[in-house]
């Protein structure tokens, strides 16, 4: 038997003492599509970064065609035939197709002059081989996203990549575009390329995979041929975690309906034709926690942001807040109606980093702290002190800029800011992201306390045990559609995950 195209043996990688990969094995044969599966944060991307030369300081070894290698840089890996196609396209929209394909690889030079004609000829050859209907001299942004994806593939292949990594390549594509991409992948297989394919879609896994490898929490779980791995078994491999003991939900006492959502539709914020949230209907009661389960591209975060008015009034469908019709317009409008959002990305969307902790906490409810426009620093100070003890924010002085805080304490500041607006509906996107275990416990206790006071919570968490333990009801989303609703706490992680991957049943295609 010949050596596989690629072998990764016992790969380990940690960030500041925190292991994210633990002795992971992986191999790729020529002419196969190998699906890499796992929940968010399982370590898939980290493993691929090791493979592509982004990280050089890892444990274990990497064998390319049976020869030991350690790439010095992504360029080094690319030269040795490894190409990655990212989820977000890395093309430069204002440049031509051919310039993009040869960008930073303008090898065909004569005394520093670019030789456009020969580049163009090669470009046309590659495009026609892939069956891409694009002209070499056209600007990339004149083409729809699906064609751009193919151009990205062409870019990867322009320099004879033998190993192609595709990270969720279909998330932006329409059905026919997906079909074409898969056809291209089949061709590449026949030519002896190996493809590593990362996806969250059950249907795609069973459509393209020759073999499947599962990672979970940075550990290697197993590899199997597609025929030998049932969907149930795959889900079990992916979840297989003990339900976290720390997250515990006290018995809720539900009040009346505070939020009623009917056929809520949100266009894709990135401008893709498929709506990010498609005719979703459910309701939320006072004192209730409803969890939204969904993997990347499910639209759960878009749903929260759209409810909050982050995208303006581009949504359709009927919304009722405490019985009165509500149309999302702007964050300010939402706050006035008693809706607050905890943003998923606290550094980009949640905090004003150079501002003090006190000023960040009061920012969203500043009108309350400045009657007739005059700031009342004493009231701000008092509110910040209360937040400090309520949330257990550990800091020497509340006047320090918020950028000096640790991640967990920053998260508490964002939560404190939301709560200062005295919301009746809290939209929480990953309330425990980047928070240590102790702080997590405290946040869980707070969620229970708030719901006991009648606040309704809509929760997103990529940590399945957390979502299961905290939610009174779970709604599974897959590509913008509601696929299932689960009542109570006796539902299993496997069932929820299966629903958020598009269901266990075989689809018609």
């Amino acid at each position: 038997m010949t050596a596989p195209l690629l072998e990764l043996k016992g790969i380990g990688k940690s960030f500041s003492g925190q292991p994210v990969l633990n002795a992971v094995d992986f191999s790729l044969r020529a002419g196969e599509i190998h699906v890499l599966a796992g929940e968010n944060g399982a370590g898939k991307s980290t493993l691929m970064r090791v493979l592509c030369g982004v990280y050089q300081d890892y444990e274990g070894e990497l064998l390319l065609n049976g020869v030991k290698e350690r790439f010095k840089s992504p360029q080094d890996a690319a030269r040795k035939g490894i190409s990655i196609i990212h989820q977000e396209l890395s093309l430069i929209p204002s440049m031509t197709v051919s310039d993009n394909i040869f960008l930073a690889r303008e090898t065909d030079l004569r005394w520093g002059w670019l030789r456009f004609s020969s580049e163009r000829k090669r470009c046309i050859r590659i495009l026609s081989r892939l069956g891409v209907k694009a002209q070499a001299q056209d600007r990339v942004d004149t083409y729809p996203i699906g064609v751009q994806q193919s151009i990205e593939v062409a870019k990867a292949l322009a320099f004879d990549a033998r190993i192609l990594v595709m990270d969720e390549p279909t998330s932006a594509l329409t059905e026919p575009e997906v079909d074409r991409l898969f056809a291209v992948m089949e061709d590449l297989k026949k030519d002896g390329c190996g493809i590593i394919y990362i996806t969250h879609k059950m249907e795609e896994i069973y459509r393209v995979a020759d073999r499947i490898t599962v990672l979970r929490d940075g550990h290697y779980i197993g590899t199997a041929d597609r025929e030998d791995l049932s969907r149930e078994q795959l889900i079990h491999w992916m979840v297989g975690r003990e339900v976290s003991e720390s997250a515990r939900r006290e018995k809720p006492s539900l009040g009346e309906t505070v939020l009623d959502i009917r056929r809520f539709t949100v266009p894709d914020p990135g401008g893709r034709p498929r709506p990010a949230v498609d005719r979703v209907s459910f309701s939320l009661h006072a004192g209730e926690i409803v969890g939204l389960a969904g993997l990347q591209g499910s639209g759960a975060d878009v749903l929260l942001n759209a409810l909050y008015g982050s995208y303006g009034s581009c949504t359709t469908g009927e919304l009722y807040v405490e019985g009165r019709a509500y149309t999302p317009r702007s964050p300010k409008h939402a706050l006035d109606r008693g809706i607050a959002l905890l943003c998923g990305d606290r550094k980009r969307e949640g905090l004003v980093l150079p501002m003090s902790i006190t000023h960040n906490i009061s920012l969203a409810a500043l009108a309350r702290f400045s009657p007739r426009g005059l700031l009342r620093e004493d009231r701000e100070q008092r509110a910040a002190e209360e937040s400090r003890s309520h949330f257990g924010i550990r800091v020497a002085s509340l006047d320090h800029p918020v950028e000096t805080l640790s991640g967990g304490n920053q998260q508490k500041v964002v939560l404190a800011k939301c709560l200062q607006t005295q919301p009746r509906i809290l939209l929480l996107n990953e309330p425990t992201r980047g928070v240590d275990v102790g702080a997590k416990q405290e946040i869980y206790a707070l969620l229970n306390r708030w719901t006991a006071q009648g606040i309704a919570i809509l929760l997103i968490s990529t940590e399945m045990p957390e979502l299961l333990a905290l939610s009174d009801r779970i709604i599974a989303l897959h590509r913008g559609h509601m696929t299932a609703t689960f009542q109570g706490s006796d539902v299993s992680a496997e069932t929820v995950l299966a629903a958020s991957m598009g269901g266990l049943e075989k689809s018609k295609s």
Partner: protein
Amino acid sequence: MNAAVVPLQRLRPIFSHPLFRALLALVIILILGSFFNAEGSFFRWETHRDMLRHISRYGILACGMTLVIITGGIDLAVGSVLGLVSVLSALLMIHWGWSPLLAVPVCLLVGLSCGAVSGSLVSKFRVQPFIATMAMMVFARGLAKYISGGRKISQGVQQGDTFVYLDFPRFFEVLNARILGENVAVVTLVFLGCALFAGLLLARFRPGRYLYAIGGNEEAARLSGVPVASTKILAYALSGVFAAIAGICQAAQETQGDPEAGGSYELTAIAIVVIGGTNLMGGRGSMALTLVGALTIGYLEKILSLNAVGEAGRLMLTGFIIVAAVLFQRSKR
């Protein structure tokens, strides 16, 4: 013994405070001034009084510039708006004999409109601040030349064959005077009033807090319910008002309205803000820093002119010193 070390460590937050750094730069300039004192003239009160008077117009512009820069923007139009309003105020009060009670509000309104247009372009139409205010800079200069017919608006007027001198308005005389025993120029008081207004707005009022939030993280501010567009328009509009105030002072001090007045003043205003330590990235800075920056630039120019450094040398040295001051403030941060 480390007894001496402990108090030093306790002082560290003071050392790293931006206001301390700004003051240190000012002190260094003052020490330089006392060495190169031009045969003692640096120690005379008149020197300092004249410096304050000279820097006042730039300082008034810098008040508005501080507000805009804290949002992360820039206002290149202030020099041209100053020129436009100096022409307009001279026209209204010298030629047409309007009462200042009417003329001044009209002038301020013109400045406000110029700023509000820039601000709307920036916030509603998402034009980059540099481009939007550059367009306003060119437009306002053109408007100044249009309403003045390209000539300086002064007391002397051609009427048929005769040349008559009009009265110099009392308002301009007052604005150009020195009070308190000839010790303080009125324009300096105007500058301090503007600085106090801008400083209070930034530190004590809701819109001021919003300016910092927008400059610090516009997306987070928007998602916190901050009215981003109207707050930005407010910053540029106030910058226009300050430019108009400086324009009236300019006309009073020069006893005429010059359509070319204020050319490159915007650069001096930006230099004042930056040398004070307000960050061009937005979100950080204060009016106190700008005040210190105004003194630093003012003394720098004064010392150079006292020592009869020619214009060529003065410009080159000023360039060096701006860079040195900014690098100095950034060190150890």
